Protein backbone atom coordinates (compact mmCIF):
# COMPACT_ATOMS: atom_id res chain seq x y z
CA UNK A 1 0.00 0.00 0.00
CA UNK A 2 2.81 2.39 0.85
CA UNK A 3 4.13 1.79 -2.63
CA UNK A 4 0.89 3.12 -4.07
CA UNK A 5 1.07 6.20 -1.84
CA UNK A 6 4.59 6.95 -3.09
CA UNK A 7 3.53 6.33 -6.66
CA UNK A 8 0.51 8.61 -6.33
CA UNK A 9 2.56 11.44 -4.83
CA UNK A 10 5.08 11.11 -7.65
CA UNK A 11 2.34 11.00 -10.27
CA UNK A 12 0.96 14.28 -8.89
CA UNK A 13 4.43 15.86 -9.17
CA UNK A 14 4.86 14.66 -12.75
CA UNK A 15 1.38 15.57 -13.93
CA UNK A 16 1.02 18.88 -12.08
CA UNK A 17 2.92 21.06 -14.60
CA UNK A 18 0.82 19.74 -17.50
CA UNK A 19 -2.43 20.25 -15.64
CA UNK A 20 -1.39 23.72 -14.51
CA UNK A 21 -0.39 24.77 -18.03
CA UNK A 22 -3.74 23.64 -19.41
CA UNK A 23 -5.56 25.46 -16.62
CA UNK A 24 -3.49 28.66 -16.96
CA UNK A 25 -4.06 28.78 -20.70
CA UNK A 26 -7.83 28.27 -20.36
CA UNK A 27 -8.31 30.66 -17.45
CA UNK A 28 -8.61 33.44 -20.00
CA UNK A 29 -9.99 31.95 -23.23
CA UNK A 30 -8.81 35.20 -24.83
CA UNK A 31 -5.29 33.75 -24.56
CA UNK A 32 -6.05 31.51 -27.51
CA UNK A 33 -7.53 34.37 -29.53
CA UNK A 34 -4.48 36.54 -28.91
CA UNK A 35 -2.21 33.71 -29.84
CA UNK A 36 -4.15 33.17 -33.06
CA UNK A 37 -3.05 36.67 -34.07
CA UNK A 38 0.52 36.49 -32.83
CA UNK A 39 3.10 37.16 -35.55
CA UNK A 40 2.00 35.48 -38.76
CA UNK A 41 -0.87 33.86 -36.87
CA UNK A 42 -0.68 30.57 -35.04
CA UNK A 43 -2.51 28.94 -37.95
CA UNK A 44 0.50 29.55 -40.20
CA UNK A 45 2.94 28.10 -37.69
CA UNK A 46 0.73 25.09 -36.94
CA UNK A 47 0.37 24.44 -40.67
CA UNK A 48 4.14 24.63 -41.11
CA UNK A 49 4.65 22.22 -38.21
CA UNK A 50 2.07 19.84 -39.59
CA UNK A 51 3.56 19.94 -43.09
CA UNK A 52 7.04 19.25 -41.74
CA UNK A 53 5.77 16.39 -39.58
CA UNK A 54 3.77 14.80 -42.38
CA UNK A 55 6.71 15.06 -44.81
CA UNK A 56 9.10 13.69 -42.19
CA UNK A 57 6.85 10.75 -41.31
CA UNK A 58 6.17 9.92 -44.97
CA UNK A 59 9.83 10.30 -45.95
CA UNK A 60 11.08 8.23 -43.04
CA UNK A 61 8.56 5.46 -43.69
CA UNK A 62 9.32 5.26 -47.41
CA UNK A 63 13.09 5.36 -47.10
CA UNK A 64 13.31 3.00 -44.13
CA UNK A 65 10.75 0.49 -45.44
CA UNK A 66 12.54 0.20 -48.79
CA UNK A 67 15.95 0.16 -47.13
CA UNK A 68 14.87 -2.26 -44.40
CA UNK A 69 13.58 -4.72 -47.02
CA UNK A 70 16.75 -4.33 -49.08
CA UNK A 71 18.97 -4.94 -46.06
CA UNK A 72 16.91 -7.87 -44.79
CA UNK A 73 16.47 -9.80 -48.01
CA UNK A 74 19.19 -8.90 -50.50
CA UNK A 75 22.94 -9.08 -50.66
CA UNK A 76 24.76 -6.36 -52.48
CA UNK A 77 28.24 -4.89 -52.45
CA UNK A 78 28.71 -2.16 -49.87
CA UNK A 79 25.75 -3.38 -47.82
CA UNK A 80 27.54 -3.51 -44.48
CA UNK A 81 29.33 -0.24 -45.12
CA UNK A 82 26.08 1.58 -45.85
CA UNK A 83 24.43 0.08 -42.76
CA UNK A 84 27.32 1.16 -40.55
CA UNK A 85 27.37 4.63 -42.12
CA UNK A 86 23.66 4.97 -41.32
CA UNK A 87 24.15 3.87 -37.70
CA UNK A 88 27.07 6.30 -37.42
CA UNK A 89 24.49 9.11 -37.54
CA UNK A 90 23.73 8.17 -33.93
CA UNK A 91 27.36 8.65 -32.94
CA UNK A 92 27.66 12.13 -34.40
CA UNK A 93 26.16 14.84 -32.22
CA UNK A 94 23.25 16.32 -34.05
CA UNK A 95 24.09 19.91 -33.06
CA UNK A 96 27.50 19.75 -34.67
CA UNK A 97 26.34 19.10 -38.22
CA UNK A 98 23.49 21.59 -38.37
CA UNK A 99 25.79 24.50 -39.27
CA UNK A 100 27.21 22.73 -42.36
CA UNK A 101 23.70 21.46 -43.18
CA UNK A 102 22.53 25.08 -43.21
CA UNK A 103 25.22 25.92 -45.77
CA UNK A 104 24.68 22.73 -47.75
CA UNK A 105 20.91 23.22 -48.02
CA UNK A 106 21.72 26.66 -49.42
CA UNK A 107 23.74 25.02 -52.22
CA UNK A 108 20.80 22.82 -53.24
CA UNK A 109 18.19 25.58 -52.93
CA UNK A 110 16.56 24.20 -49.77
CA UNK A 111 17.61 26.82 -47.23
CA UNK A 112 14.70 28.25 -45.27
CA UNK A 113 12.55 25.50 -46.76
CA UNK A 114 10.17 23.15 -44.98
CA UNK A 115 11.15 20.42 -47.43
CA UNK A 116 14.83 20.87 -46.56
CA UNK A 117 14.03 20.74 -42.85
CA UNK A 118 11.97 17.57 -43.32
CA UNK A 119 14.80 15.88 -45.23
CA UNK A 120 17.16 16.68 -42.37
CA UNK A 121 14.69 15.12 -39.92
CA UNK A 122 14.43 12.02 -42.12
CA UNK A 123 18.21 11.70 -41.95
CA UNK A 124 18.22 11.96 -38.16
CA UNK A 125 15.43 9.36 -37.88
CA UNK A 126 17.06 6.96 -40.30
CA UNK A 127 19.34 4.92 -38.00
CA UNK A 128 16.49 4.03 -35.64
CA UNK A 129 13.98 3.57 -38.47
CA UNK A 130 16.22 1.46 -40.69
CA UNK A 131 17.21 -0.77 -37.78
CA UNK A 132 13.55 -1.29 -36.80
CA UNK A 133 12.43 -2.01 -40.35
CA UNK A 134 15.30 -4.35 -41.18
CA UNK A 135 14.52 -6.40 -38.08
CA UNK A 136 10.82 -6.42 -38.89
CA UNK A 137 11.43 -7.75 -42.42
CA UNK A 138 13.95 -10.29 -41.15
CA UNK A 139 11.38 -11.63 -38.72
CA UNK A 140 8.88 -12.39 -41.51
CA UNK A 141 8.79 -15.98 -42.69
CA UNK A 142 10.40 -16.32 -46.09
CA UNK A 143 7.46 -18.43 -47.26
CA UNK A 144 5.31 -15.31 -47.26
CA UNK A 145 7.49 -13.71 -49.88
CA UNK A 146 8.15 -16.88 -51.82
CA UNK A 147 4.44 -17.59 -52.16
CA UNK A 148 3.96 -14.16 -53.70
CA UNK A 149 6.93 -14.64 -56.01
CA UNK A 150 5.60 -18.01 -57.16
CA UNK A 151 2.30 -16.33 -57.93
CA UNK A 152 4.20 -14.27 -60.45
CA UNK A 153 4.67 -11.08 -58.48
CA UNK A 154 7.98 -9.29 -58.83
CA UNK A 155 9.76 -8.53 -55.57
CA UNK A 156 8.42 -4.98 -55.60
CA UNK A 157 4.83 -6.13 -55.93
CA UNK A 158 5.36 -8.72 -53.21
CA UNK A 159 6.78 -5.91 -51.12
CA UNK A 160 3.92 -3.46 -51.59
CA UNK A 161 1.06 -5.98 -51.62
CA UNK A 162 2.01 -8.38 -48.87
CA UNK A 163 5.13 -7.57 -46.89
CA UNK A 164 4.23 -3.98 -45.99
CA UNK A 165 0.99 -5.25 -44.44
CA UNK A 166 2.93 -7.74 -42.38
CA UNK A 167 5.31 -5.15 -40.90
CA UNK A 168 2.58 -2.64 -40.06
CA UNK A 169 3.31 -2.53 -36.31
CA UNK A 170 6.93 -1.56 -37.00
CA UNK A 171 5.77 1.10 -39.45
CA UNK A 172 3.53 2.61 -36.76
CA UNK A 173 6.41 2.69 -34.27
CA UNK A 174 8.75 4.32 -36.77
CA UNK A 175 6.07 6.83 -37.80
CA UNK A 176 5.30 7.75 -34.20
CA UNK A 177 8.95 8.39 -33.35
CA UNK A 178 9.33 10.44 -36.53
CA UNK A 179 6.25 12.51 -35.74
CA UNK A 180 7.21 13.29 -32.15
CA UNK A 181 10.77 14.19 -33.15
CA UNK A 182 9.85 16.48 -36.03
CA UNK A 183 6.86 18.15 -34.36
CA UNK A 184 8.82 18.89 -31.20
CA UNK A 185 12.27 19.74 -32.47
CA UNK A 186 13.47 23.25 -31.78
CA UNK A 187 17.15 23.48 -32.70
CA UNK A 188 17.02 22.34 -36.33
CA UNK A 189 14.21 24.72 -37.41
CA UNK A 190 15.84 27.52 -35.41
CA UNK A 191 18.95 27.16 -37.54
CA UNK A 192 17.53 26.04 -40.88
CA UNK A 193 14.55 28.42 -41.15
CA UNK A 194 15.14 32.14 -41.11
CA UNK A 195 11.96 33.82 -42.13
CA UNK A 196 9.03 34.25 -39.75
CA UNK A 197 6.45 32.98 -42.22
CA UNK A 198 8.15 29.57 -42.42
CA UNK A 199 8.67 29.09 -38.66
CA UNK A 200 7.36 25.95 -37.03
CA UNK A 201 5.43 26.16 -33.74
CA UNK A 202 8.33 25.69 -31.31
CA UNK A 203 10.39 28.46 -32.91
CA UNK A 204 7.42 30.79 -33.18
CA UNK A 205 6.18 30.26 -29.62
CA UNK A 206 9.66 30.63 -28.13
CA UNK A 207 9.94 33.93 -29.98
CA UNK A 208 6.94 35.13 -27.94
CA UNK A 209 9.29 35.36 -24.94
CA UNK A 210 12.01 37.11 -26.85
CA UNK A 211 10.41 39.57 -29.21
CA UNK A 212 7.45 41.06 -27.46
CA UNK A 213 8.02 44.65 -26.53
CA UNK A 214 6.99 45.27 -22.96
CA UNK A 215 5.56 42.55 -20.81
CA UNK A 216 5.49 38.91 -21.83
CA UNK A 217 1.95 37.59 -22.08
CA UNK A 218 2.27 34.48 -19.91
CA UNK A 219 -1.27 33.30 -20.50
CA UNK A 220 -0.78 33.38 -24.24
CA UNK A 221 2.53 31.58 -23.79
CA UNK A 222 0.82 28.69 -21.98
CA UNK A 223 -1.80 28.56 -24.74
CA UNK A 224 1.15 28.12 -27.13
CA UNK A 225 2.57 25.37 -24.93
CA UNK A 226 -0.77 23.55 -25.03
CA UNK A 227 -1.10 23.82 -28.81
CA UNK A 228 2.34 22.22 -29.12
CA UNK A 229 1.91 19.60 -26.39
CA UNK A 230 -1.68 18.48 -26.87
CA UNK A 231 -1.29 16.49 -30.13
CA UNK A 232 1.75 14.69 -28.71
CA UNK A 233 0.04 13.82 -25.43
CA UNK A 234 -2.98 12.38 -27.24
CA UNK A 235 -0.89 10.49 -29.80
CA UNK A 236 1.32 9.08 -27.09
CA UNK A 237 -1.59 7.91 -24.96
CA UNK A 238 -3.30 6.26 -27.93
CA UNK A 239 -0.17 4.67 -29.42
CA UNK A 240 1.75 3.99 -26.22
CA UNK A 241 2.09 0.29 -26.95
CA UNK A 242 3.83 1.05 -30.23
CA UNK A 243 6.13 3.56 -28.58
CA UNK A 244 7.25 1.08 -25.96
CA UNK A 245 7.96 -1.47 -28.67
CA UNK A 246 10.52 0.97 -30.06
CA UNK A 247 12.36 0.72 -26.77
CA UNK A 248 12.03 -3.04 -26.50
CA UNK A 249 13.34 -3.58 -30.02
CA UNK A 250 16.84 -2.69 -28.93
CA UNK A 251 17.06 -0.16 -31.72
CA UNK A 252 18.10 2.52 -29.23
CA UNK A 253 21.20 0.50 -28.59
CA UNK A 254 22.63 1.30 -31.96
Amino acid at each position, binding site marked *: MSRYLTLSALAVLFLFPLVWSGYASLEEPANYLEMAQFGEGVGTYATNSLLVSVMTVAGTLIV*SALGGYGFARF*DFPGKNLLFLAT*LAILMVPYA*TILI*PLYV*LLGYIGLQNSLVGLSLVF*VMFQLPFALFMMRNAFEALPRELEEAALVDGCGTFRAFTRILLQAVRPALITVGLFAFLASWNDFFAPLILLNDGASFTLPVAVVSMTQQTFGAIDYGMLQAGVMV*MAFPCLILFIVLQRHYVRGF*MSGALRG
Partner: protein
Amino acid sequence: MTLTITRSGRRPAHSAPSARWRSRKVQGWLYAAPTAVIVGVLFIAPLVLVVWMSLNRWPLLGQATFNAPTNYVKIADNPLFVDAVLFTLKYTAITTVLLSAVALGLALLVQDRKPGIGFFRTAFFLPGAVGFAAAGLLFYGMLNNDFGPIDPMLQSLGITDEPVKWIGTPNMALFSTITLVIWRFAGFNMLILLTGLQAIPTEVYEAARSDGANRWQVFTKITLPLLRPTLALMLILSITGSLLAFDQFFVFTNGGPDNSTVSMVMVVYRDAFFRFDLGGAAALSVVLLVALVGLNTVMMRRLR
Protein backbone atom coordinates in the same frame (compact mmCIF):
# COMPACT_ATOMS: atom_id res chain seq x y z
CA MET B 1 27.29 -1.78 -29.09
CA THR B 2 25.24 -4.95 -29.13
CA LEU B 3 24.43 -4.61 -32.75
CA THR B 4 25.45 -7.37 -35.04
CA ILE B 5 25.06 -7.21 -38.74
CA THR B 6 23.47 -10.40 -39.88
CA ARG B 7 23.85 -11.57 -43.39
CA SER B 8 20.42 -12.61 -44.32
CA GLY B 9 20.37 -12.88 -48.07
CA ARG B 10 21.55 -16.48 -47.94
CA ARG B 11 23.02 -17.57 -51.20
CA PRO B 12 22.29 -21.17 -52.14
CA ALA B 13 25.55 -22.81 -53.16
CA HIS B 14 24.05 -24.64 -56.09
CA SER B 15 21.65 -24.20 -58.97
CA ALA B 16 21.10 -20.45 -58.78
CA PRO B 17 21.75 -19.00 -62.21
CA SER B 18 24.25 -16.16 -61.88
CA ALA B 19 22.07 -13.78 -63.88
CA ARG B 20 19.36 -14.08 -61.27
CA TRP B 21 21.85 -13.27 -58.53
CA ARG B 22 23.13 -10.29 -60.41
CA SER B 23 19.59 -9.05 -60.70
CA ARG B 24 19.11 -9.55 -56.96
CA LYS B 25 22.22 -7.47 -56.34
CA VAL B 26 20.82 -4.69 -58.48
CA GLN B 27 17.45 -4.93 -56.79
CA GLY B 28 19.10 -4.81 -53.38
CA TRP B 29 20.88 -1.65 -54.38
CA LEU B 30 17.68 -0.11 -55.68
CA TYR B 31 15.90 -0.71 -52.37
CA ALA B 32 18.83 0.74 -50.45
CA ALA B 33 19.37 3.65 -52.85
CA PRO B 34 17.16 6.20 -51.03
CA THR B 35 19.00 5.42 -47.80
CA ALA B 36 22.32 5.85 -49.57
CA VAL B 37 21.27 9.20 -51.03
CA ILE B 38 20.04 10.57 -47.70
CA VAL B 39 23.09 9.34 -45.80
CA GLY B 40 25.47 10.55 -48.51
CA VAL B 41 24.00 14.00 -49.11
CA LEU B 42 22.73 14.91 -45.64
CA PHE B 43 25.23 13.13 -43.40
CA ILE B 44 28.56 12.36 -45.09
CA ALA B 45 28.65 15.60 -47.11
CA PRO B 46 28.02 17.89 -44.09
CA LEU B 47 30.66 15.98 -42.14
CA VAL B 48 33.19 16.77 -44.85
CA LEU B 49 31.88 20.31 -45.23
CA VAL B 50 32.15 21.12 -41.53
CA VAL B 51 35.85 20.26 -41.61
CA TRP B 52 36.39 22.36 -44.73
CA MET B 53 34.44 25.29 -43.25
CA SER B 54 36.54 25.16 -40.10
CA LEU B 55 39.64 25.76 -42.24
CA ASN B 56 38.20 28.91 -43.79
CA ARG B 57 37.18 32.39 -42.83
CA TRP B 58 33.53 31.75 -43.60
CA PRO B 59 31.23 34.72 -42.99
CA LEU B 60 27.46 34.16 -42.90
CA LEU B 61 27.22 36.19 -46.12
CA GLY B 62 30.06 36.64 -48.56
CA GLN B 63 33.07 34.80 -49.89
CA ALA B 64 34.97 32.17 -47.90
CA THR B 65 38.77 32.41 -47.77
CA PHE B 66 41.22 29.76 -46.57
CA ASN B 67 42.73 30.78 -43.23
CA ALA B 68 43.68 27.56 -41.40
CA PRO B 69 44.37 27.18 -38.56
CA THR B 70 43.08 30.56 -37.34
CA ASN B 71 39.61 29.28 -36.38
CA TYR B 72 41.14 26.61 -34.15
CA VAL B 73 43.76 28.88 -32.62
CA LYS B 74 41.19 31.45 -31.58
CA ILE B 75 39.08 28.89 -29.69
CA ALA B 76 41.49 29.20 -26.76
CA ASP B 77 40.97 32.99 -26.77
CA ASN B 78 37.20 32.66 -26.66
CA PRO B 79 36.44 33.22 -22.96
CA LEU B 80 32.74 32.49 -23.47
CA PHE B 81 33.61 29.03 -24.80
CA VAL B 82 36.08 28.20 -22.06
CA ASP B 83 33.49 29.13 -19.43
CA ALA B 84 30.84 27.21 -21.35
CA VAL B 85 32.97 24.04 -21.30
CA LEU B 86 33.32 24.21 -17.53
CA PHE B 87 29.65 25.01 -17.04
CA THR B 88 28.51 22.23 -19.38
CA LEU B 89 30.70 19.67 -17.61
CA LYS B 90 29.27 20.69 -14.24
CA TYR B 91 25.74 20.56 -15.59
CA THR B 92 26.37 17.14 -17.15
CA ALA B 93 27.78 15.65 -13.94
CA ILE B 94 24.92 16.83 -11.72
CA THR B 95 22.19 16.04 -14.23
CA THR B 96 23.47 12.56 -14.98
CA VAL B 97 23.71 11.57 -11.31
CA LEU B 98 20.29 12.93 -10.35
CA LEU B 99 18.51 11.81 -13.50
CA SER B 100 19.86 8.25 -13.20
CA ALA B 101 18.90 8.04 -9.54
CA VAL B 102 15.34 9.27 -10.17
CA ALA B 103 14.92 7.05 -13.24
CA LEU B 104 16.17 3.98 -11.37
CA GLY B 105 13.84 4.72 -8.46
CA LEU B 106 10.86 5.08 -10.78
CA ALA B 107 11.75 1.94 -12.73
CA LEU B 108 12.00 -0.13 -9.53
CA LEU B 109 8.64 1.22 -8.34
CA VAL B 110 6.80 0.32 -11.54
CA GLN B 111 8.63 -2.84 -12.61
CA ASP B 112 6.03 -5.32 -11.40
CA ARG B 113 2.85 -5.65 -13.43
CA LYS B 114 0.41 -4.90 -10.63
CA PRO B 115 -3.04 -3.35 -10.99
CA GLY B 116 -2.82 0.33 -11.84
CA ILE B 117 0.91 0.26 -12.59
CA GLY B 118 0.25 1.06 -16.24
CA PHE B 119 -1.30 4.37 -15.22
CA PHE B 120 1.79 5.36 -13.23
CA ARG B 121 4.17 4.38 -16.02
CA THR B 122 2.18 6.58 -18.40
CA ALA B 123 2.08 9.44 -15.88
CA PHE B 124 5.87 9.38 -15.45
CA PHE B 125 6.52 9.18 -19.15
CA LEU B 126 3.96 11.75 -20.30
CA PRO B 127 6.26 14.81 -19.88
CA GLY B 128 8.61 13.06 -22.31
CA ALA B 129 6.02 13.30 -25.08
CA VAL B 130 6.05 17.10 -24.73
CA GLY B 131 8.68 18.85 -26.80
CA PHE B 132 11.65 20.26 -24.97
CA ALA B 133 10.92 23.80 -26.13
CA ALA B 134 7.33 23.52 -24.91
CA ALA B 135 8.52 22.05 -21.61
CA GLY B 136 10.98 24.93 -21.19
CA LEU B 137 8.25 27.50 -21.80
CA LEU B 138 5.94 25.66 -19.43
CA PHE B 139 8.50 25.94 -16.62
CA TYR B 140 9.26 29.52 -17.62
CA GLY B 141 5.63 30.39 -16.85
CA MET B 142 5.22 28.05 -13.90
CA LEU B 143 8.23 29.49 -12.08
CA ASN B 144 7.47 33.10 -12.91
CA ASN B 145 7.10 35.06 -9.68
CA ASP B 146 3.94 36.91 -10.66
CA PHE B 147 2.18 34.44 -12.94
CA GLY B 148 3.28 31.01 -11.74
CA PRO B 149 1.63 28.94 -9.01
CA ILE B 150 4.79 27.68 -7.33
CA ASP B 151 5.72 30.78 -5.30
CA PRO B 152 2.23 31.26 -3.81
CA MET B 153 2.09 27.56 -2.94
CA LEU B 154 5.47 27.57 -1.21
CA GLN B 155 4.57 30.72 0.68
CA SER B 156 1.19 29.47 1.85
CA LEU B 157 2.89 26.30 3.10
CA GLY B 158 5.33 28.51 4.98
CA ILE B 159 8.37 27.09 3.17
CA THR B 160 9.46 30.46 1.77
CA ASP B 161 8.70 34.03 2.80
CA GLU B 162 9.29 35.82 -0.45
CA PRO B 163 9.37 34.98 -4.17
CA VAL B 164 12.28 32.71 -5.12
CA LYS B 165 14.67 33.89 -7.84
CA TRP B 166 14.20 30.68 -9.83
CA ILE B 167 16.31 31.79 -12.76
CA GLY B 168 17.68 34.98 -11.20
CA THR B 169 20.94 33.65 -9.75
CA PRO B 170 23.45 31.32 -11.43
CA ASN B 171 22.94 28.49 -8.93
CA MET B 172 19.17 28.73 -8.90
CA ALA B 173 19.07 28.89 -12.71
CA LEU B 174 21.11 25.67 -12.82
CA PHE B 175 18.93 24.03 -10.18
CA SER B 176 15.69 25.02 -11.95
CA THR B 177 17.00 23.82 -15.31
CA ILE B 178 17.99 20.45 -13.85
CA THR B 179 14.52 20.12 -12.31
CA LEU B 180 13.03 20.78 -15.73
CA VAL B 181 15.32 18.22 -17.36
CA ILE B 182 14.52 15.55 -14.75
CA TRP B 183 10.80 16.19 -15.16
CA ARG B 184 11.09 15.92 -18.94
CA PHE B 185 13.47 12.93 -19.17
CA ALA B 186 13.00 10.75 -16.07
CA GLY B 187 10.21 8.75 -17.71
CA PHE B 188 12.25 8.21 -20.86
CA ASN B 189 15.17 6.83 -18.84
CA MET B 190 12.75 4.82 -16.70
CA LEU B 191 11.50 3.09 -19.86
CA ILE B 192 15.06 2.26 -20.90
CA LEU B 193 15.73 0.73 -17.48
CA LEU B 194 12.43 -1.17 -17.53
CA THR B 195 13.52 -2.98 -20.68
CA GLY B 196 16.61 -4.11 -18.77
CA LEU B 197 14.74 -5.04 -15.59
CA GLN B 198 12.24 -7.12 -17.49
CA ALA B 199 15.00 -9.07 -19.17
CA ILE B 200 16.13 -10.41 -15.77
CA PRO B 201 14.52 -13.85 -15.37
CA THR B 202 12.27 -14.15 -12.32
CA GLU B 203 13.92 -17.49 -11.48
CA VAL B 204 17.10 -15.61 -10.58
CA TYR B 205 15.20 -13.60 -7.98
CA GLU B 206 13.42 -16.66 -6.65
CA ALA B 207 16.68 -18.54 -6.30
CA ALA B 208 18.22 -15.63 -4.38
CA ARG B 209 15.26 -15.35 -2.04
CA SER B 210 15.20 -19.05 -1.32
CA ASP B 211 18.90 -18.72 -0.43
CA GLY B 212 17.81 -16.19 2.20
CA ALA B 213 18.96 -12.98 0.49
CA ASN B 214 17.26 -9.83 1.78
CA ARG B 215 15.93 -7.08 -0.45
CA TRP B 216 19.07 -4.97 -0.33
CA GLN B 217 21.26 -7.97 -1.17
CA VAL B 218 19.00 -8.85 -4.07
CA PHE B 219 19.26 -5.28 -5.34
CA THR B 220 23.05 -4.94 -5.06
CA LYS B 221 24.03 -8.51 -5.91
CA ILE B 222 21.52 -9.33 -8.63
CA THR B 223 19.56 -6.39 -10.00
CA LEU B 224 22.42 -3.92 -10.38
CA PRO B 225 24.96 -6.29 -11.97
CA LEU B 226 22.41 -7.73 -14.39
CA LEU B 227 21.17 -4.24 -15.21
CA ARG B 228 24.67 -3.01 -16.00
CA PRO B 229 24.40 -2.96 -19.81
CA THR B 230 21.10 -1.08 -19.64
CA LEU B 231 22.44 1.34 -17.03
CA ALA B 232 25.44 1.91 -19.27
CA LEU B 233 23.20 2.69 -22.21
CA MET B 234 21.22 5.16 -20.12
CA LEU B 235 24.38 6.83 -18.81
CA ILE B 236 25.81 7.20 -22.30
CA LEU B 237 22.59 8.72 -23.63
CA SER B 238 22.34 11.05 -20.63
CA ILE B 239 25.96 12.19 -20.74
CA THR B 240 25.93 12.77 -24.49
CA GLY B 241 22.59 14.56 -24.32
CA SER B 242 23.72 16.81 -21.46
CA LEU B 243 27.02 17.72 -23.09
CA LEU B 244 25.02 18.89 -26.11
CA ALA B 245 22.43 20.79 -24.06
CA PHE B 246 20.93 23.71 -25.93
CA ASP B 247 17.13 23.96 -25.86
CA GLN B 248 16.78 24.10 -22.08
CA PHE B 249 19.23 26.98 -21.75
CA PHE B 250 18.15 28.85 -24.85
CA VAL B 251 14.45 28.65 -24.02
CA PHE B 252 14.38 28.63 -20.24
CA THR B 253 17.32 30.67 -18.92
CA ASN B 254 18.46 32.26 -22.19
CA GLY B 255 22.03 31.75 -20.99
CA GLY B 256 21.48 34.03 -18.02
CA PRO B 257 21.95 35.47 -15.57
CA ASP B 258 25.18 37.11 -16.76
CA ASN B 259 26.03 34.31 -19.22
CA SER B 260 26.28 31.91 -16.29
CA THR B 261 24.23 29.21 -18.05
CA VAL B 262 25.72 29.32 -21.54
CA SER B 263 26.32 25.77 -22.79
CA MET B 264 28.89 24.74 -25.38
CA VAL B 265 26.36 24.33 -28.18
CA MET B 266 24.96 27.79 -27.36
CA VAL B 267 28.39 29.28 -28.07
CA VAL B 268 28.43 27.49 -31.44
CA TYR B 269 25.03 28.99 -32.19
CA ARG B 270 26.03 32.50 -31.10
CA ASP B 271 29.25 32.42 -33.12
CA ALA B 272 27.35 31.39 -36.21
CA PHE B 273 24.24 33.53 -36.04
CA PHE B 274 25.09 36.50 -33.86
CA ARG B 275 28.74 36.97 -34.77
CA PHE B 276 28.14 35.69 -38.35
CA ASP B 277 31.32 33.61 -38.05
CA LEU B 278 30.42 30.23 -39.57
CA GLY B 279 34.09 29.24 -39.82
CA GLY B 280 34.59 29.72 -36.09
CA ALA B 281 31.34 27.88 -35.33
CA ALA B 282 32.47 25.03 -37.61
CA ALA B 283 35.80 24.76 -35.78
CA LEU B 284 33.96 24.54 -32.45
CA SER B 285 31.65 21.91 -33.99
CA VAL B 286 34.61 19.82 -35.13
CA VAL B 287 36.15 19.98 -31.65
CA LEU B 288 32.84 18.93 -30.04
CA LEU B 289 32.34 16.20 -32.60
CA VAL B 290 35.76 14.66 -32.13
CA ALA B 291 35.51 14.94 -28.34
CA LEU B 292 32.07 13.32 -28.20
CA VAL B 293 32.78 10.52 -30.65
CA GLY B 294 35.96 9.79 -28.67
CA LEU B 295 34.11 9.90 -25.38
CA ASN B 296 31.32 7.66 -26.70
CA THR B 297 33.83 5.11 -27.94
CA VAL B 298 35.64 5.04 -24.60
CA MET B 299 32.38 4.82 -22.64
CA MET B 300 31.07 1.97 -24.77
CA ARG B 301 34.28 0.01 -24.19
CA ARG B 302 34.45 0.72 -20.48
CA LEU B 303 30.86 0.53 -19.39
CA ARG B 304 29.79 -2.57 -21.22
